């Protein structure tokens, strides 16, 4: 599985974890990669924990199993921090706390990155939809894909649905988290 980069995004229904996973995967596809993005469907209701998975590879992907040992774990809702894989190389967390504080109170072995995505989202959008800022944080932490490529796919995915004005604000969220990311 060495040539497959695996990501797990942990969030709650309504926060946009599924959308974020699809945008990342589509952006990777446009960079010429093979991709897979899927979510674990339990009770489909707002607020319930939801886990989304992404695989990115330069070769075709044939497995259809959930990701057990992700290279990167993304925690979109801090109350679900305990679900994070402790062996991930990198963990990106939506929190006001610093990476040091998180390191101190968890058993996470990988490098920790934090950004207040909820704060950014509430400030700019007026509501807690932390997926676009979290994507910004993920890109800064990993250099996984070119920033403008993900921005373009975000627009492709969302602009028609939410309108240009809200879209621009989402891109502002995306950039803010990219700039404000803290690392351990």
């Amino acid at each position, binding site marked *: 599985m060495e040539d497959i980069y695996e990501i797990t995004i942990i969030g709650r229904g309504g926060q946009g974890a599924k959308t974020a996973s*699809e945008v990342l*995967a*589509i952006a990777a*596809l446009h960079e010429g990669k*093979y*991709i*897979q*993005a*899927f*979510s674990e*469907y339990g009770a489909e209701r707002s607020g319930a924990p939801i886990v989304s998975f992404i695989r990115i590879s330069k070769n075709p*992907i*044939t*497995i*259809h*199993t*959930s990701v057990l040992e992700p290279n990167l774990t993304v925690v979109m809702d801090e109350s679900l921090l305990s679900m994070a894989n402790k062996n991930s190389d990198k963990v990106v967390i939506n929190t006001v706390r610093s990476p040091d504080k998180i390191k101190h109170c968890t058993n996470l072995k990988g490098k920790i990155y934090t950004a207040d995505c909820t704060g950014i989202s509430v400030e700019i959008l007026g509501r807690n939809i932390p997926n676009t800022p979290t994507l910004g944080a993920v890109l800064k932490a990993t250099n996984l894909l070119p920033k403008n490529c993900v921005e373009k796919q975000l627009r492709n995915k969302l602009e028609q649905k939410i309108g240009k004005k809200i879209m621009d604000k989402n891109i502002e969220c995306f950039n803010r988290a990219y700039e404000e990311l803290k690392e351990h």
Partner: protein
Amino acid sequence: MKKMKTKALTGADAAGTAMKQIDPDVVAAYPITPQTPVMHKFAKFIADGEVHTELIKVESEHSAMSASVGAASAGARVMTATAANGLALMVEIVYIAASLRLPIVMNVVNRALSAPINIHCDHSDSMLCRDSGWIQLYSENQQEVYDNTLLAVRLAENSKVKLPVMVCQDGFITSHEVMRVDLLEDKKVKDFIGKHKPDYPLLDTDNPVTYGPLDLFDYYFEHKRQQSEALTHVFETFNNLSKEYEKISGRKLNLIEPYKLKDAELAIICLNSSAGSVKFVVDQLREWGVKAGLLKIRMFRPFPKKLVVDALKHVKAFAVLDRSESFSLQGGPLFTEIRSTMYEIENKPKSVNYIYGLGGRELKLDHIRQVFEDLGKVAESNKFKIVRFLGVRNG
């Protein structure tokens, strides 16, 4: 390289996109649960004016298939989609569609049947229809959903065949997972699909015909015999269409797909997405020197017996993975089919069956490794349990 468009699509989107390019005359569907995102996607194409299809929104799946039967008898090219209990409710008319030799193509998103209530993947729904007379194609991934759907239209409408086709994909695993899919240009699809030329349309009033009359002990049996005969033309027709499809897509669709099976000693046989995960484990085991292989079955009805025998006869032991339970206590539907197929050869490989993944229980890579490990023991043993359960408590 043939000109193509690469997109990130779910299995449901892949089916919906194929339907859009096919642009059928009529689609009948019941628009609430247990409907799948296939119709969601397709209904959007209709709303956006991208297809000319007449969408009939009916009051149940039973009516969806009834409307499909009516429209197909009239001479229309008809498609629909369903899943799980929706398919179960259709079943009475599903049999009628095949018996009337109507070339309807239906996307089935494989999901568990109640009870208990479950919306996740297993193959109980399409296996309920395995004796209905429909051709059944199974799809490993989103790309195969797309390819199978396009080919299914030609297969169904072939004048030697004239039978409905079910294109199956794994619920959620394939239907809701986004993967890379290479699409053909609309025009290429149009040219490949061609115009539907029904042989005996009801609307041809100059040549009046009757569909579905009373047919008692005088001719019913002959009609059933002809239905059986029609299925014998399926393999050759499929292979010819496959060659034609390969020319425009660069992708070869086989009735069965042997994977690293030529020199294999141990083999797994399965349907749909599990085949992809098994390929991954086979590659790993091969690196460790284990002669493992896979046989993926694309066409389950009719069953390509000769190919299966040729592919499997040399292995020491094989395991059939069944994602549905037929409660015969003799194993699942795929297992009994393959075991019966292998009966005629001498020096039969040893065979075991694993019922797995019911109600969406995940097939993990460790489970697959376990099966190959078990197979190693089975190959050396004369006494072993034949029907087993994989990944279940108290298995």
